[in-house]
């Protein structure tokens, strides 16, 4: 009983200590570079929670991180490393914007349809690597990385064709928008949109699939031990494909949130959004659990958005800010080392 308690304690303490350590080392970096760390962190805090606008924008930033994190985490539970979240996000973004702009439907149909289009596009983009893995044993990491580039350039070309040589798509119709007057006025014109509800809903969906369904049990079993699962009569190939498809759907949704909520259209891109890659870190921070992903996404999203305020309010240059933020993330990612340290300490105490 007592060891259980301490395990739970450690689980709570590790991220907290990691964040504090990261902030401390970040403060040293700011001091050495000749900036005031207190002013810097005040600016960071203000940038995240300072007023209703900042809170709205922070939540807006967290939304795609939750979905990208879920996408990586879900595949991981089946033993698959989905590096292709970035590409699935980009095709999902485009598909959602396309459906949002090209059709004229009442909102009750249009909005869900656009969101589903994003999810479907992401799922389709992940289906291919899943199929190749299941049928031909081609490693999903390689295929998904390549699919990222294909997604980026195919979508760029599609935007060009659709807009007749321009560099952005049409705006989505009001009936497909996740934004609302209400949220906007609540947060002083921030771009907060209903996507956060979709994201939280998906957290529940992931938990439900994994913990409450036979399919989820099979998926996890394949993740734990492929051969044992096969011996137990599970179809490995089917489960791999299914896992990638669901993971891709989450990623596609992340893109749909950007398209239907934050931006309302899509630009041709010179490079990746980075959200998909950050999703890997979010999932790892959250130990690939649905609730953990929320924690990871909140941390990533808050830091990313709040950091914008550090040059703004404390005159700390962007470059130093990036180092500080990276340090915090680094220490959180090092959670394992801190955990080891804590367990050792508590064990020693126990022996005495």
């Amino acid at each position, binding site marked *: 009983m007592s060891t259980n308690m*301490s395990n739970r304690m450690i689980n709570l303490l590790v991220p907290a200590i990691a964040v504090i350590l990261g902030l401390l080392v970040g403060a040293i970096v700011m001091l050495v570079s000749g900036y005031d760390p207190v002013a810097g962190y005040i600016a960071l*805090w203000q940038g995240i929670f300072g007023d209703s606008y900042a809170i709205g924008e922070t939540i807006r930033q967290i939304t795609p991180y939750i979905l990208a994190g879920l996408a990586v985490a879900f595949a991981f539970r089946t033993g698959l490393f989905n590096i292709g979240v970035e590409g699935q996000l980009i095709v999902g973004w485009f598909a959602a914007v396309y459906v949002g702009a090209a059709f004229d439907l009442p909102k009750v149909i249009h909005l869900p349809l656009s969101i589903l289009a994003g999810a479907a596009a992401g799922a389709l983009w992940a289906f291919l690597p899943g199929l190749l893995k299941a049928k031909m044993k081609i490693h999903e990491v390689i295929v998904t990385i390549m699919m990222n580039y294909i997604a980026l350039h195919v979508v760029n070309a599609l935007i060009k064709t659709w807009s007749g*040589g321009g560099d952005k798509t049409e705006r989505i119709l009001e009936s497909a928008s996740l934004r609302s007057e209400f949220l906007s006025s609540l947060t002083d014109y921030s*771009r907060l949109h209903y996507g956060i509800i979709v994201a939280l809903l998906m957290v529940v969906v992931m938990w439900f699939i994994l913990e409450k369904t036979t399919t989820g049990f099979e998926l996890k079993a394949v993740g734990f031990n492929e051969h044992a699962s096969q011996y137990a009569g599970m179809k490995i190939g089917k489960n791999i494909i299914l896992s990638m498809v669901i993971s891709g759907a989450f990623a596609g949704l992340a893109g749909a949130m950007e398209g239907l909520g*934050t931006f309302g259209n899509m630009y041709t891109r010179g490079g990746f959004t980075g959200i998909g890659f950050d999703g890997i870190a979010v999932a790892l921070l959250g130990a690939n659990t649905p609730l953990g992903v929320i924690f990871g996404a909140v941390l990533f999203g808050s830091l990313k958005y709040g950091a*914008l305020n550090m*040059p703004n309010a404390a005159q700390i240059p962007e470059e130093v800010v990036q180092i500080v933020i990276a340090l915090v993330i680094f220490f959180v990612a090092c959670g394992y080392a801190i955990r080891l340290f804590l367990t050792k300490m508590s064990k020693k*105490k126990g022996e005495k």
Partner: protein
Amino acid sequence: MAKRKFGLALSVLLAAGTLLGACGSDNGEEAKNEGNNSGGESSSEFSVAMVTDVGGVDDKSFNQAAWKGIQEFGKDKGLEKGDGGFDYLQSAGEEDYIPNLNALARRDFNLVFGVGFMMQDALDEIASQQKDTEFAIIDAVVEQPNTVSLLFKEHEGSFLAGVAAGLMSESKKVGFVGGMENEVIYRFESGFVQGVKAVDPSIEVDVQYTGAFDKAELGKTTANRMYSSGVDVIFHAAGGTGNGVFSEAKERKANDPDANVWVIGVDSDQYDEGAVGDTNVTLTSMLKRVDVAVKDISEKAMNGEFPGGEVITYGIADDGVALADSRGAIPEDVMAKIEEYNEKIASGEIEVKEYPEGKEPK
């Protein structure tokens, strides 16, 4: 025993929490004070700020030119960096444009510049919300009563760059490295190709787009391919990607001081970029005087003559585009020819087309 250790850890946590909490209450007051200060200052003085696009303020090109303009304006008027004076914010991604523009408007800057066409939608949205702030956007058109849109005739300046490249090329092969394909970069390509062809229609122009403004490594491989295929002058219109063109040319020059490799810079005078020991690979630079435009608009806004809702275009005739000092890289007789074309364009005798052949909007 284990429990005591955790108790200790917990108390550390609590202590940290109180510390952070203290920070929180502190800064509330500070923010208020700041608000008062900036409010008082901005009523008596004029302040101006800008938001960079993803290239960043030190892109040695477009954003840097805008920031230079703002700094010079600030110095002229005795302003200081920060609230009530002049400042900039950098954007790491497209999602940062709106928060950044909004942050500057909320800090009560009188005039806020959005640098780059990518900021078009973001600036449109913020300008419609922050009606008391004046905005200016560079390279795009935003139709709002409190926004002025600044465009450049890059095709006119690039025409001169094309003339210089055409006259200086020995291999009769020149190259163009673009960033992302869009209307603005098309103007560079179109002008350059027309300039080259005006000198000698038989000269080959290798046109390549890298698809990005921030990928120096792509610029380098593209330049490598071009120089290897016999191209000797490359004009880049690719922002940070163009820095890779410079590094490739410099490497070639360093390995073989007699190599005939040249780069024509873009937006700012990129002479410093091309230095290799005592020599330099920069032939000249096509200056897009964003700094001139920025100072011009700041001046007007300060005097209460802000041209809100207008679209202002800067061409050769308005000193909006020009070639930089070649510092001896271009001989006198070639300079004379360039000057000839310069006058013809300024007087309207030559009309440079905005779009490259086959890339006109449908």
